[in-house]
Each structure stands twice: as structure tokens, then as C-alpha cells.
């Protein structure tokens, strides 16, 4: 049915709305099916994390929903006996500096690449962006040896530096591309007023860049929190192990203990999900500005 008027006219009659809705049924069905595929796996593990150990082996979680015979023992067991509470704090202790450092160092550099003229600036910028191609495997062992020289392998400094180094190219790329969109007039006005670069950076650019900074920060925080490989190699002191490594160790040499793995997995997911739901906007923005106009 062709709409004769402009798009501004809404459908008014009930029958027209109904027809519209029905013709959309395949869409609704498709979306519901997709939503199910996307929700069921996580829900399954979540329900399992509250079930008693023998139950898990005996029957499917979908049968258990009606039962309501739940327990929080898995969580208490995993937090206490498996040191997940410590691991949680470790994850936090690793993620926060690993986010702040590249943010600050990257912002400084990005500012220079955007608003300070110096020789070879664009070439260096390109070179830094090119570093994004380096897979961590090409850097693991030498960085490890470097940390040995610096004697920092038994502390958190190692993994902070590792995460910072690997994140800098992307940080600089992202932030620089945002900084140059700032109003030129503002910056030049500040310059004319005699403000130093440092002043412009901290008083003009940074406050205007909060969305971009926040986007990178959230992106980086989640990336570090969820990381496994860096932690496996650089966190060598078992007391400092973050959640990801701890969970993988629960997959012990003998097999999967689902009552622990399910609870552990959700503890791992808790913070990212919280961050995601409260700061979704920034997270999405980070993704978009990194890849599209």
C-alpha cells in the first residue's frame, strides 16, 4: 500500500495498525528466536550456578526452574575456598592502573599529535598506528625477559606496563582522531592568550573530551578485566592471579567442576555487565569512533 501523504502522517486506524503488526510477524518471530539464542546459554549457566552439585550432574537446568531447590553454596565455596574473592580484587588491582596509564600517556601524546607542530609528527603518528598490527605473541617473550632485567616479575608493575604498552597505539589513534575535531578557534584563542600547551591540554582539551576519554577508559577496562593471555604469562605470582586465570585453573587437570565453574564465571561477568549496563552509551561510542565515521 503506497502512502500518499508525507511520512509525517501517522497511521491512525486500528485495522491499519493491526495489519502493520501482523505483516511484521515474521520479523517478530525471527527476533524472538534470535533473542532466545542469545539469552538461553547465559541463563542456563546462571541457573546452574545456584544448583546443588549432585543435581547438576543428575538433571538439566531447564528442569530445575520449577524446583526452586537452590543454594548459594557454590558462590561461597568459590569465593572462599578457591580464592575468587582475592582474584576479584586482583582483577580490579590490575585493571584500574592498566586503564589509567594508557589513558593519560595516550592523551598526552594524542594532544601533541593533534595540536602541536613538531618535525616528523605525522610520520611518527603513522608509525604508532601501524604498531596496532603487532600480535601479542610477537612481544610476549622479549617483554618477559625485559621484566626480568628490571626485576619486576613478582609485582603488578609488569602486567600494568604490558597492558599499557599494548593499548597505547589504539589509545593514541582513538584520542587523536577525537582531539582534532575540537574547535580550532578555541585552541587558537587560548594560544593567542599566551596559554602554554600544558594549560591548553589540561584546561581546554581534556574537559571537552570527556566522552572520548570515557569511551576509551571503559573499553580498556573491560578489555583488561576480561583478558586471559597477558595474565597467564605476566602474572607469575599465584597470589596476584586475576579472575580469568583462576577460573581456567578450576578446569583442573582432571575435569570440569560445573558447580564451581558456573559460579566463578558469573563472578567474572558481574563487573563487566554492571559497567556495560550503566555506561553502555560510552562503550558503544568507543566502538564506533574506533571504526566508523
Amino acid at each position, binding site marked *: 500500500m503506497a502512502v500518499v501523504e508525507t511520512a509525517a502522517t501517522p497511521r491512525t486506524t486500528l485495522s491499519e495498525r493491526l495489519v502493520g503488526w501482523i505483516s511484521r510477524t515474521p520479523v517478530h518471530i525471527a527476533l524472538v528466536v534470535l533473542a532466545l539464542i542469545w539469552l538461553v546459554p547465559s541463563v542456563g549457566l546462571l541457573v546452574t550456578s545456584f544448583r546443588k552439585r549432585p543435581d547438576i550432574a543428575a538433571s538439566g537446568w531447564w528442569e530445575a526452574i520449577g524446583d526452586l531447590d537452590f543454594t548459594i553454596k557454590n558462590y561461597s565455596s568459590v569465593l572462599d575456598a578457591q580464592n575468587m574473592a582475592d582474584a576479584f580484587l586482583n582483577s580490579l588491582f590490575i585493571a584500574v592502573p592498566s586503564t589509567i596509564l594508557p589513558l593519560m600517556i595516550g592523551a598526552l601524546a594524542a594532544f601533541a599529535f593533534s595540536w602541536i607542530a613538531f618535525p616528523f609528527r605525522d610520520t611518527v603518528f603513522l608509525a604508532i598506528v601501524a604498531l596496532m598490527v603487532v600480535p601479542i605473541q610477537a612481544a610476549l617473550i622479549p617483554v618477559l625477559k625485559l621484566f626480568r632485567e628490571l626485576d619486576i616479575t613478582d609485582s603488578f608493575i609488569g602486567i600494568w606496563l604490558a597492558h599499557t604498552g599494548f593499548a597505547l597505539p589504539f589509545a593514541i589513534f582513538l584520542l587523536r582522531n577525537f582531539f582534532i575535531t575540537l574547535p580550532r578557534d578555541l585552541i587558537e584563542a587560548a594560544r593567542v592568550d599566551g596559554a602554554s600547551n*600544558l594549560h591548553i591540554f589540561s584546561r581546554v582539551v581534556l574537559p571537552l573530551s570527556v566522552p572520548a576519554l570515557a569511551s576509551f577508559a571503559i573499553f580498556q577496562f573491560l578489555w583488561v578485566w576480561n583478558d586471559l593471555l597477558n595474565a597467564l604469562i605476566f602474572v607469575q605470582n599465584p597470589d596476584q592471579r586475576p579472575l580469568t586465570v583462576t577460573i581456567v585453573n578450576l578446569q583442573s587437570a582432571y575435569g570440569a567442576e560445573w558447580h564451581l565453574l558456573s559460579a566463578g564465571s558469573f563472578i567474572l561477568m558481574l563487573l563487566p555487565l554492571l559497567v556495560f549496563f550503566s555506561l553502555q552509551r560510552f562503550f558503544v561510542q568507543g566502538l564506533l569512533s574506533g571504526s566508523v565515521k
Partner: protein
Amino acid sequence: MTRYRTFLVLLPALVVALALVAAGCGGDDEGSSKSTGTVSVFSLWGGSERDAFQKVLTGFTEKTGIKAKYEQGRDFLPILRPRIAAGNPPDVAIIPRPGVVADFARDGSLKTVEEIGLDTDALTENLSQSYLDLGTVDGDLYGIVVKANSKNTIWYKPASFKQLGVQPPEDWQGLLQIADKMRSEGKKPFAVGAQGSTNSWTLTDWFENIYLHQAGPEKYQQLFTGELPFTDPTVKTALGEMTKVISDENVPGGIQGVLGTDFVTSIGQVFGTNAKAEMHGQGGFVGGIAIGQVNTKLKPITDIDFFDFPTLNPAYKGALMGAGDQAVAFTSNDDVKALMEYLASPEAGEIWAKTGAIISPNKAVPDSAYPNELAVKEAKQLKDAETFRFDGSDLLPGTLGQSWATTLQAIIQNPDKMDQELQDFQSSAEGEFEA
């Protein structure tokens, strides 16, 4: 205003500077290091096995006042290697593979028993020569065997056997007949858990038992030290027997089920409350895991028992395949010396044996130390064995053991591709044995 600006710029510089300062202050000591009052011990045990070892460490601390920290990891090699490369290894590690111990020794990463200052006389008194040989690499003793187990066992449920009207078999044919009988009654005779890369060792154990009892201890040793190729007809024959046991009709879920089930779950398939199979063909430690983790209501001997691996060739009846874990030291100081001494002592052996988690290789540990008859039975097996052979896949160097397990996984899935798989494995093995 000035302070804020300065702070903003200085902070990242400060952190980087701190890191470099830490570098300057840190001393890197390759030789013997100072005792700190704590020793770190690394191994891969979790669950009940870890709790058992913890008791030994507690005994150590009570006796010497030195604290011991147990560190654990799922895949011990990827944990140890980066730590060694970073100059940050644990003080002591307990390693189940002599091949790996040899690797590390040749690497220069380990300290010899002499370097640590242990009393070799006391060692020779308590450990038999074959155990000492295991820990010796190129003439120097590096590893002390602290835990032994027999793999010469097949676990079963006496109640099921009684119901079926059969007795534990003496020979291989007998075992196959029992399996037939079980199948005719609608039961699955065996359960095997060989999932992924962490559980595939179960297949290597099955193969090694069959090979040892069929081809004999000499060929066994030659095979796993690179003198006999894996394409030898004896290997094929043994594999043929193995595929008779691990076949689609004999296990729950068929071969695919085997490859999708992990070790502990497979024990549960026989001894759990929702049992799906009758027999389990892995080592002595199955008992401890079955009773301790899978089904705490099991009563040793009555509900769960094992019989010796059946004979294939009567000439090799007295051969026994087993394994053992060695304690090795990466650093050398007084604390480490104390711990190694303690681990080698009968005292530690007794404490550990009491938990039922291990059989001690220490001759001075009495039978009475073992908590149940199953453990005593296993210890007796180890003591009475005429010829002892170490778990083959653990003898293989580098990643070859893992490769072999992977090859076996491929063979049980496609037995007709056996020749090709063995050839491929042999060519990669040749490369490893050379290096």
C-alpha cells in the same frame, strides 16, 4: 593551577620512573639465594589431592618452622616456562614427567641434589635404584620421587560382578569375555574420559598397559626412548587390542562420548549414583578420587575394588607400569634444602600415605600407614612388581607425550587410518629425539 597541571603531566612519568627505579634496586641472583623463611612449592594437584599434600606441608612447617606455600596450575608447563624465562621460578616443583625434568635439567634451570647439599646416603637407603634412576639426568641426580602410583589396575564394582556371576579375570581373553557378557545384559563394560588435551593421557595409559603386557618390558623401554619406531608391528597389534576395548559398543556415548568426557566424569560414569558403565581402566589414584570426590558413600573393597591388569603374554606377567612425581629444586638455599630433605623422609611419606592420595616410594613407610585396603593393595603391587616401567608418555621428550595422546585420540576415531597416523607420529618423534 600550576600544581594541577604539573601533577597531570608528572603522574605518568612518575609511574614509569618508579618502574625503572625498581629495576635499579632489584638484585638478580643466579646462584644460591638467601633463605626467607618461606618456600614455594608448585604442582598441578587440585581438589582432594591438593588437600592431601597440604597436610604434608603442614607437617613440614611444624617440624622446621619454615613456611611452605603451595602453588597450583592447570597446565604446569606453560606456567613454569615463562617463570623460568623471567628468572622467577618457584623454589620447588613436583613434576609428573621425567621427560620434562630432563628438559629442565639440560636447560640449566634445575639444581642437582648435590648442589642443594642433600645427604645422598639417606636417599639411597630409602629409595630403590629404579626410582633414583628416574631422577637422574646425564649422570646427576636432580629429582626425588615422592609420589608413586601403579597403573596396573582395572577398577570395578564387586556387586555388579557378583550379579553377573563373574570373577575378576586373570587374562585378556577373560576380560573380553566379561565385556561381552556385560554387553549382552545391556550394560556398557567400560568408561573412558579422554576429552581435549588435558584428559587424553587416559588413552596413553591404556595403550602402555596393553603394550607392556603384550610386547614386554624391553620393547616398551625401547619404544619410549626412541630406539624402536612407533611404526613397529607390535605397536599396531597392541592398538588393535585397545580398539577392541575402546569401541563404540563398549563405552557410554561411543567413541565420541569418550572424546567429550573428562576424567573425573568418566569415573562418575562407573561409580557415581547415575552409573552408566561397569569398569574403569586407569591407575591406582582412581580409588581416591572416586571415594573422595565422586561418591563419598563408596566403601573400599565392598563397593569399589580393582584387579591387576590382565595378562596378555604369560611371560610378562610380573611387569608393572606405573608413574611417579619427582620433587625438583630451581633455587638453592637452606629452606629449599630443608623441604627436599623432608619430602624424601619416611615421616613425610607416612603423613601423605595416610591421606590415601598416594603410594609412597619410600621403603621405610609401613603398610599400616595406608588408610584402606585399596591403598595397601596398590602399595603391595608396587613392591612386588618384578619389572617396573614408567608411564611411557611421560618419558617422551618435549611435547611428544602430548602428541602421542593426540595421535591415539585420532586412532580410536579412525582405526583404519592407523598406519598413516603412526607414520606421521614417528616422523615427528624422530625430530624430537634428535633435538
